[in-house]
């Protein structure tokens, strides 16, 4: 039955206060930004927290800012809808906006946050693969002060992250993209236009003419966390992109991932699609990189 269990709702005004509450309530407390994942888990009976600590009252945490030298910062309570429509993001990081816009439906985007989507650590997250490809860095606050953690060291398994007890992700930073960089993200699902991802791929390529100088390629929903296809990258890096090379990289990316069969797709279909999506995202990103 879809009913919320009883909990106390706490809304601290500062990060320090929130960290303090996390310390005092321990494992019985959960952090909430938009609550679109958290409340579902409670309704389904997967967790029964005694305390919910909302981040929504903390001033400035919903900021989205862009600086031409340091890049983009998305605060912990910035909504998916705000990220999807933000002019600076649309201009400088269109794939970040696209991934936010591709997350769930309009109601969820008006409640949910990018950071929440990351901290939920679902292998099917729409926002993780693109941010990983762009070398995003998490800003974390905790009892021992602030620290930064590259996003590619954050995911440890489905629902598991590198956060230590009582730590809070306060923002995600995305560096200024290198010159001649292009990004792309494609996800597939069983239902046409509005669905959770059954398989996805995101890439950032840096081009020099027809030659790919650098590449970061991630596949989604094909392992316990978003996976980096390191060997597929090697096939492309430093080379002139050709159909043949793309096909090789696609099949290598398939071999590197270990998709399972679940409700949303079979492992076999996912394996095939990693190849197809790898070719497509690299093609699209390299096209964008060359302007």
């Amino acid at each position, binding site marked *: *039955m*879809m*009913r919320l269990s009883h909990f106390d709702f706490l809304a601290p005004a500062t990060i320090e206060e929130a960290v303090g509450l996390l310390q005092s309530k321990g494992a019985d407390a959960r952090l909430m930004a938009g609550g679109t994942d958290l409340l579902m888990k409670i309704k389904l009976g997967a967790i029964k927290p005694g305390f919910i600590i909302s981040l929504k009252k903390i001033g400035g945490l919903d900021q989205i800012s862009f600086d031409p030298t340091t890049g983009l910062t998305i605060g912990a309570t910035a909504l998916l809808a705000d990220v999807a429509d933000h002019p600076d993001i649309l201009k400088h990081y269109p794939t970040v906006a696209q991934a936010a816009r591709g997350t769930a*439906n309009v109601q969820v985007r008006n409640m949910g946050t990018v950071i929440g989507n990351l901290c939920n650590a679902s292998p099917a997250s729409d926002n993780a693969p693109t941010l990983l490809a762009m070398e995003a860095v998490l800003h974390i606050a905790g009892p021992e002060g602030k620290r930064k953690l590259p996003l590619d060291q954050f995911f440890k398994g489905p629902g598991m992250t590198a956060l230590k007890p009582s730590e809070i992700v306060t923002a995600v930073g995305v560096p200024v993209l290198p010159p001649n960089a292009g990004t792309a993200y494609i996800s*597939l699902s*069983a*239902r*046409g*236009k*509005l*669905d*959770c991802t059954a398989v996805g791929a995101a890439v950032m390529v840096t081009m020099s003419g027809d030659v790919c100088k650098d590449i970061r390629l991630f596949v989604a929903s094909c392992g316990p966390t978003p996976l980096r296809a390191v060997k597929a990258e090697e096939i492309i890096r430093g080379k002139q992109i050709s*159909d043949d090379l793309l096909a090789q990289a696609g099949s290598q990316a398939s071999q590197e991932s270990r998709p399972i069969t679940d*409700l*949303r*797709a*079979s492992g*076999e*279909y996912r394996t*095939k*699609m990693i190849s*197809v999506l790898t070719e*497509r995202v690299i093609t699209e990103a390299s096209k964008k990189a060359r302007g």
Partner: protein
Amino acid sequence: MKEYSIVGKHVPRNDARAKATGSALYTDDMKLPGMLHGRLLRSPLAHARIVRIDTSRAESLPGVRCVITGEDTPKVKYGNWRLFPDTQDEYPLAVDKVRFIGDEVAAVAAVDLDTAEEALGLIEVEYEELPGVFDVDSAIREGAPVLHDYCPNNVSVNRKIQYGDIDKAFAESDYVREDVFTVHAVSPAYLEPCSAMAQSDLDGRITLWTSTQVPYIVQCLLASTLKMRENDIRVIKPYVGGGFGGKMELRAWEFCAAFMARKTGRPVKFTLSREEEFLAGRRRHAMKLYSKVGFKKDGTLTGKDLRIHLDGGAYNAMGPTATFLCGNFGAMLYRYPSYRFLGEHVYTNKPPASAMRGFGAPQSIFATETQMNIAAEELGIDPIEIRIKNAQVSGDEIPEVATVSSCGFIEALEKAAEMSGWKEKRKSLKDGRGIGIGCYSFISGGVFNWFNTQYPFSAAEVRVFGDGTAHLLTMAADIGQGCDTVLKQILCEELGLKMEDIRITSADTATTPQADLGAWGSRLTLMNGNAIVEAARKIKAQLFGTVSAKYNLNVIYDMECKNGRVYPANKPDRGMSFAEAVAMTQKANRGEPLVAFGYYTPRGKGLVTPAFSFGAQVAEVEVDKQTGIVEVKKFWTAHDCGTVVNPKAVEGQLEGAIQMGLGYTLSEQFIMDGGKTLNTHFLDYKMPNAMDMPPSEVAHIDTYEPEGPMGAKEAGEGLAIPTAPAIAEAVFHATGYRCRDLPITPEKILNGMEELPQAKSKPAARK
């Protein structure tokens, strides 16, 4: 088409404002003082003997007012097929055995939902697990586990139809084609989960408010299962958020609400969660269809031999009717000189399948239409031409099955071809694009009286008043399809009144006339429309008498009721207002209220239906040949529903049908692990949403159904049928992959394309 004043016009629906503003009250919105909240304990096992149930801990939980199991109830089996009591195979709560995961075992009523939910966890049930069967092939095998003792081979119902010499027909055919098709189960997924609230008065009479399509059936079956008299039970249908066939039986929570209300003396309400609906709710039948069909070289049909196994799940529910209809519809659309059908309804340890929009016809016609498309391909004939060659026409008769009085099928085929640019597109679409056709026919209500009612199939009471208004009372259930509006339109047309002049009271078994079999089988427009017309004509006869007397008119004059006036057709000035005519008629009868009843029960139309609808739908798709993902670009539909009573309502039916058809064809399915349903929420039950809806064009084919009110027949369910075969053919046209097992998933398309002969010789084309 004949011009009417209100019939055929864009009349806004009665309920539009209430629904748009949120003021419409559904069952779950209602609360009564002292009301208890009910919850059901469901079986976690697919097949098991109940050894022991201990409810004592649940009963002692503070706030719990009542806990019941099957043993506390009168233990009366029920089912809609009362005519054949053997088929009534369900207890309101399990007795001795559970037969599917979700089978109702016990019920709790408590002061709030949390307490009721907690109490469920305190009921101890000891089961002895039994082996289960989860598909029809295993279930009919010798030695298979038996679900119901009365039915040792697990085949609960069979239906045979035969005419013509089928063996001779195949022997004389130039081309004979045999295929096996499988179609899957889907959920009606109505927006409003089932809900029922019961109250017992001091005399022990029950009032039940419930989200149902069939108030009368619920009244009768509630009476039999409670061992009460029918008239001591009043069933009221509030606003209902869709049914699609899934709410057309008595259900466990309706029984439990009533039983527990009597036991506690307090009102009791049950509302199902979406998870319960997906886990245990009624489904469309999965089927395995063996179809053999013969043709002459020129595409003329010679005969068809159809065998179907319906996967009925654990109980009959409306399976017997689906078994009949898939047989009947195997022989519709085209002229089969010979036909043989054997349908068998098979028990399996899964949630019961039942009625769902089309009721056996979508499955049967998917096979018919796909096979027609295959035959067209292999005989080198255009799919639309081969259909026109064999199409049924007005006046066709099939013994005991069909009397086709009106049929616009050929016109629909021609119109669909013209609207879609069929001829050009079949030749010139680019690689990955395809266009395909599917057709349908459907009933306008059923004839076969399986419920064994002693009442007419539909009834109407019309009261008219001296202020120029009327009150229509009917048991017809508006479940969102809009019959309250359509039936008012029919009465307005007949009496010459305006929509705002009519008050309607519907679907209350204590105040509306006996009886009505319910909202299913697309029956209300025709059957209730006819009852209303009859009642209105009785009223008019009296008003005409009054006007004739007042003006001393010649008895041969034709009289009319139009625009709020009653007058002789060719002497309009010698008339009076409707209001005056009513008042004068009453005065002539010492003030007696002016009331009339009308009834309809079909006669002389065979055992299936008084009237058939027809139609054709063309789909254009684009298939991504690397991912297998299908996008439907556009639908064109030409349909024959006789006189269109409310064009907007018909278009709404078409849009809804396309949405359901898209899901049925491409994305919706239950993912099962044996008897366990794994996808019990909308996140993983992939129902298409607004963003997936392709553009669509529609043409109403102008026909007049002599049996229907003002020439009308069905427009509700038939439209849900053609979408699957149309998309399947378009996918074939685009990719070469021919689907014989729904749904058409991307993976099936990719695997199917790999198996094509040309795929093995040529490398796959790059995007």
